């Protein structure tokens, strides 16, 4: 196995020191997800040196690793034991770390079926804005002692604590897998994908782009076979590469300089009347939009369906969907409760935050 280094003491001290000086810190892992969200203010704090798998027992379905551990290293260890990270995190670059992935709260195509990053988090060890080294949750499947601050860390972009260690639930990799392709327009795709899910088919991903629905089936061989017989569609060879391209946004759809929006909506939400091409992932619940439409237009359309829109590439401010006033006030109070001086990734989530 690879490098091991425990820098928890040094990192805690750095934060404590910064807290004393009220000097903002910009926490940085592999830097692969820096494009998400706003720019963090302050001195750079590199956590990539704090790395290594702390414990992994396949029989327990739990893996604990330090925040700076490369995602590739974790995935390799799991693959050796026939297991996987069920939320299929997008790497967005070779240097992706576990900490950055959890902080960004990003999840791949399997998300609606296996859960998001936050769903798989069992425990975290963090450094709060006071420089205190704290542990929440643990390595057991169920744990309701105290508030669930572990899951709160997922998607908080480091604004609520610097992650030191994360314990995740992992799962056995499915024994068999197949992908079927269907010719659908977008409306049919949305309808069909949701209809399929009202039956217990072993679906583990559903993606639509440019007139085609891609449906991934996985589980026991017999189960995948019977689903293929019932649902039909054309086989997709080399589907591993295909899903990788969805997960990592390396498809042609994502190329070019047009603004890229991520629309998060209820899965059966009808296609919205917004200019530019759309692709549907997460069985319709995560939609990618290439559109030069003004941010207000995009957000108003998505809001009217109870969803939210964030910008992945291009200019829009704020980059994440704005919060209602009362909720924003609550966010500030929560932030203050863990980071009173406001030094952790200041400005990363919302400009004045």
């Amino acid at each position, binding site marked *: 196995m690879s490098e091991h280094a425990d820098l928890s003491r040094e990192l805690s001290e750095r934060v404590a020191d910064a807290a004393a000086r009220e000097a903002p810190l910009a926490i940085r892992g592999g830097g692969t997800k820096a494009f998400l969200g706003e720019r963090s203010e302050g001195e750079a704090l590199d956590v990539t040196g704090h790395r290594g798998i702390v414990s992994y027992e396949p029989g*327990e379905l739990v893996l604990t690793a330090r925040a700076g551990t490369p995602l590739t290293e974790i995935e390799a260890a799991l693959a050796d034991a026939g297991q996987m990270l069920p939320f299929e995190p997008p790497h967005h670059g070779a240097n992706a770390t576990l900490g950055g992935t959890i902080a960004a709260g990003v999840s791949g195509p399997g998300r609606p079926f296996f*859960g998001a990053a936050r769903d798989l988090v069992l425990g975290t060890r963090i450094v709060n804005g006071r420089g205190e080294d704290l542990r929440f949750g643990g390595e057991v499947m169920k744990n309701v002692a105290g508030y669930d601050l572990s899951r709160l860390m997922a998607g908080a972009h480091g604004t609520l604590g610097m992650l030191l260690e994360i314990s995740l639930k992992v799962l056995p990799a499915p024994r068999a897998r197949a992908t079927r392709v269907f010719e659908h327009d977008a409306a049919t795709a949305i309808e069909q994908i949701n209809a399929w899910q009202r039956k217990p088919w072993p679906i583990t991903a559903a993606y639509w782009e440019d007139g085609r629905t891609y449906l991934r089936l996985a589980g026991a061989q017999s189960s995948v076979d019977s689903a293929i017989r019932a649902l039909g569609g054309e086989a997709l060879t080399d589907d591993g590469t295909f899903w990788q391209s969805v997960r990592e946004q390396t498809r042609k759809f994502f190329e070019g300089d047009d603004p890229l929006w991520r629309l*998060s909506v209820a*899965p059966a939400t009808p296609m919205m009347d917004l200019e530019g091409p759309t692709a549907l992932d*997460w069985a319709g619940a995560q939609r990618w939009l290439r559109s030069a439409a003004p941010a207000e237009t995009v957000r108003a359309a998505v809001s009217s369906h109870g969803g939210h829109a964030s910008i992945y590439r291009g200019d829009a401010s704020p980059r994440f969907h704005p919060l209602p006033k009362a909720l924003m006030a609550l966010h500030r109070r929560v932030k203050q409760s863990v980071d009173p001086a406001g030094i952790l990734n200041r400005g990363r989530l919302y400009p004045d935050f």
Partner: protein
Amino acid sequence: MAHADLAASTEQALGGAPRKQQLIERLTAELPADIVLHADEDLRPFECDGLSAYRQVPMIVVLPSTIAQVQTTMRICHDNDVPVVARGAGTGLSGGALPLDDGVLLSLAKFNRILDIDTDNRRATVQPGVRNLAISEAVSHLGLYYAPDPSSQIACSIGGNVAENSGGVHCLKYGLTTHNIVQIEIVTVEGERLTIGSSALDSPGFDLLALMTGSEGLLGVIVEVTVKLLAKPELARVALVAFDDVRKAGDAVAAIIQAGIVPAGLEMLDNPAIVATEEFVHAGYPKDAAAILLCEVDGTEAEVEEDIERVREVVEREGATEVRISRDDGERALFWAGRKAAFPAMGRISPDYYCMDGTIPRKALAEVLIGIGELSEEYGQRVANVFHAGDGNLHPLILYDANQEGELERTEAFGGAICRLCLEHGGSITGEHGVGVEKIDQMCVQFPSAELTQFHAVKEAFDPKGLLNPGKAVPTLHRCAEFGAMHVHNGELPHPELERL
């Protein structure tokens, strides 16, 4: 015991009868008089939840039926510095809905309507008092169901499920409440209405939905919940597996998981639990077995047939003395019926029982079981064990007689020892029942003071005056110091930074 501390934590706020009279007047000025209960006779039935060993008559009970009435109640209580305890179906097992003698008990039982069933998105929006099972019943004809199924699912309410982050027998595969809800509406301590989460799979900003779930009524009052619905599996089958040795049963649990099977449910009962439930349910459990496992696999027909045979192979290799596989849904329901009724069925073999709720890594199952057996002898009290074995979630049921002086206290001490045993094996003091008042002292053992301080800071972000369910879930450092004086571990004094009382 928690009573003294709870009373102490709130006595400074209020001063007895005139105060109560004032509050009644303010409440009835804005609310219908018949939903504000204040006579002792009316209040008594609310003095405890599913953990009846802890009792406290509340000052006032309010029975709202609209969100506006909840908001009014919260606003008046906030203005008058009166603590509020929210209560759902009152089935909780950690005393989370134990009232306060100077507080308002806010019952949400009248909120029992299913508001919307969204078939396309597979969601249901329900009021918090809706029974867990009622959701699955209401969508059954659509081929859907709501996955988390606590043993009390026939009676427990969804609002309570969210407050406790309830699990059930199918968590290993389908997750806890936190994994199966998308949005909640809350009323804040000030009486403001907020939407947490969204109809999408995530929402902008912090994951406050995760934070609210399992917060035991300390952060807000849940007034509406949108849950995810899943397609009912085509088929589910249960293997009822008997062992002549608990160690073998514990090892078989790990072996099943290791074999790459993710069972929909994996439960274990030891001999006393088998005997007690069999008397009531007649599920056909072998009464001479040292332990049984109930291993359910679900999915498509083909998948289930494949997996159940693999389960059979694994458990036979691990030394099972008997393997019975449910032939149809009727038999499957029968196999489960015993497990689901296991807790209260203890009422048949003992006047009282105390249900513990620890979690441990699966590999420690056998060892912890044996440890509990030793403690049982040490304390001279019988114990029956019911486990969500797949999740490493133990429910030791300590049998006692509350009418015998000193038995409850001894039982609580025994329970505390079991909690410590779980922690020693890297587990947690509560997997799904919550801390409530019951395990508040054990929280001091599980968490150092910095973590507890952080919890209190988060609480303050939602409830600066500390009026929502005070005294539950997270102990004050002073309480821990007091408790710590009694329980010194490894020669270290916990919370050394505190002045000793």
